[in-house]
């Protein structure tokens, strides 16, 4: 297998083993580590996690496909989650998402041709006071309007 965890990641996994009574509980921590190390969780990375934790590959695959935050293909340089749930929708999330996708020439779930921005639709992000809101590389950005979307995309594509 060509994919390997770094020494640092392996150390983190070893440290975590002492914090749970069952190694299976390391599923999400190990998958997060894999995503941090490799940028996305490929099938190869799933195999690596399965072997590292000594759990069936099917369990790893089940977890990766159940949760929404694992990228199964390489994302762009920046990841933008656009909230579509009630408060954001009421404050205009739909037209803003269309604007983002039009400007980038993508559908939700896709990455711009310059590989700069991946656009993902999301359910409630927990930032309704900033509706309509986006989660951009870990930071909440909002309330968005048409001008702010343009500025955001300009910043991300620089």
């Amino acid at each position, binding site marked *: 297998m060509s994919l390997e965890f770094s020494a640092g990641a392996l150390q983190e996994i070893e440290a975590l083993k002492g914090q749970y009574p069952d190694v299976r509980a390391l599923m999400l921590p190990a998958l997060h580590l894999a995503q941090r190390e490799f940028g996305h969780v490929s099938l190869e990375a799933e195999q690596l996690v399965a072997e590292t934790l000594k759990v069936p590959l099917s369990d790893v695959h*089940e*977890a990766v496909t159940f949760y929404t*935050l694992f990228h199964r293909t390489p994302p762009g340089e920046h990841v933008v989650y656009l909230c579509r749930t009630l408060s954001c929708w009421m404050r205009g999330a739909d037209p803003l998402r269309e604007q983002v996708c039009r400007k980038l020439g993508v559908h939700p779930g896709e990455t711009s041709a310059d590989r700069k921005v991946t656009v993902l639709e999301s359910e409630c992000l927990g930032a309704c006071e900033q509706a309509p809101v986006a989660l951009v590389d870990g*930071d909440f950005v909002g309330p968005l309007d048409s001008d702010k979307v343009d500025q955001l995309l300009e910043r991300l594509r620089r």
Partner: protein
Amino acid sequence: MSKSEPILTAHFDDPESHTLAHYRRRGGYQAIESAIRSMKPEQVTETVKASKLRGLGGAGFSTGMKWSFVPKDNPKPRYLVVNADEGEPGTFKDKWLMLKEPHTLIEGMLIASYAIGSRRAYIYIRGEYVRPLERLQGALKEATEAGLVGAPLFGSDHRLDVTIHVGAGAYICGEETALLTSLEGGKGFPKLKPPFPAIEGAFKCPTIVNNVETLSYVPHILKRGAEWFASLGGERFGGMRLFAVSGDVVRPGVYELPLTVTLRELLYDHAGGIRGANGSTELKAVIPGGSSAPILTAAEIDVAMDFDSLAKAGSMGGSGAVIALSTDVDIVEALYNVTRFYHHESCGQCTPCREGTGWMDKLLARTLAGGAREGDFDNLVRIARNIIGNTICPLGDAAALPVISYVGKFRSEFDAYLQARQGAA
């Protein structure tokens, strides 16, 4: 006015409120110290019970009562799990507590762990909360270095080790049994209760799952007394809570207020009144406790925001998330948004929820596309009624209750879609 002085949010404006030094300066970690030095664990539980603190994640169950359910004679380890998987649409209060008051949460955890006899705690935080996670990690590092976490406390043999467990994007994991399944490494499937987690939870051991805000009030209750906290509320509930207000209001945000506040006061006196996306200043409806809560009309907002009053009004206090809908909002579209959410987030384990949310989603999508048919809305309600009570976890009910209440209270708006189609035909 002193009754509504903020407790958890009192230092939100201070840019240093998240640091250990700041927390110590205002008496931080004194409550756990005096609890360990002068109280037995059972006394702590009794104090919290007497304060009438109720679970502020959504269920509203007595916190002290929950703690008292941990069996005394079970030799297995006991776990404390913090539910920081805040995901109920409209809810964003725990995010601010973790950003601004992470040490208050940690002290609340220390006290809870002492009360229930737990030496290992997990904080399950939603993966989208990247900055709150960083704050928690920073606070945990400070607390560990200060000997408050991971070391015997104040000359006793009680110690608590804390691990932060990061979720990966799944609303269902906010439901406590799904959260535990997820913590154990599985996909987030809820489990049947009983056994309740207090008897058999994480890793088949007695486990107490408490919400971030609930635990954060605990140090204050120990410091200022159960009676003080109880006196802030009413007969069956103590204290204040953090209301997360969003949607069509002038000032969306977190408001920490006594549970005796009315929905009208919250919307108009605190959140600045109504402002729709297209400028409407007229309220049409409010969802008072997260998107699962049955909707209230503009005529029903003179209701106190405690769990019991809202239940009596036919809705629920839930997570304290208040979403205001102005007359700019089409109720059918709003219900479609909510229903699509539950369809997307249904874990798929129980047939009534998996299939029912799908049919409700499809039926509403067809209505909005101009395809409403005679009998559709009765069918919609019938599907919803067949979900309620027939699923393992409350997500099914959470999907069904909005459908029943929106159609019940705004039937003419639904029928207008049917009439528009018939008119066109």
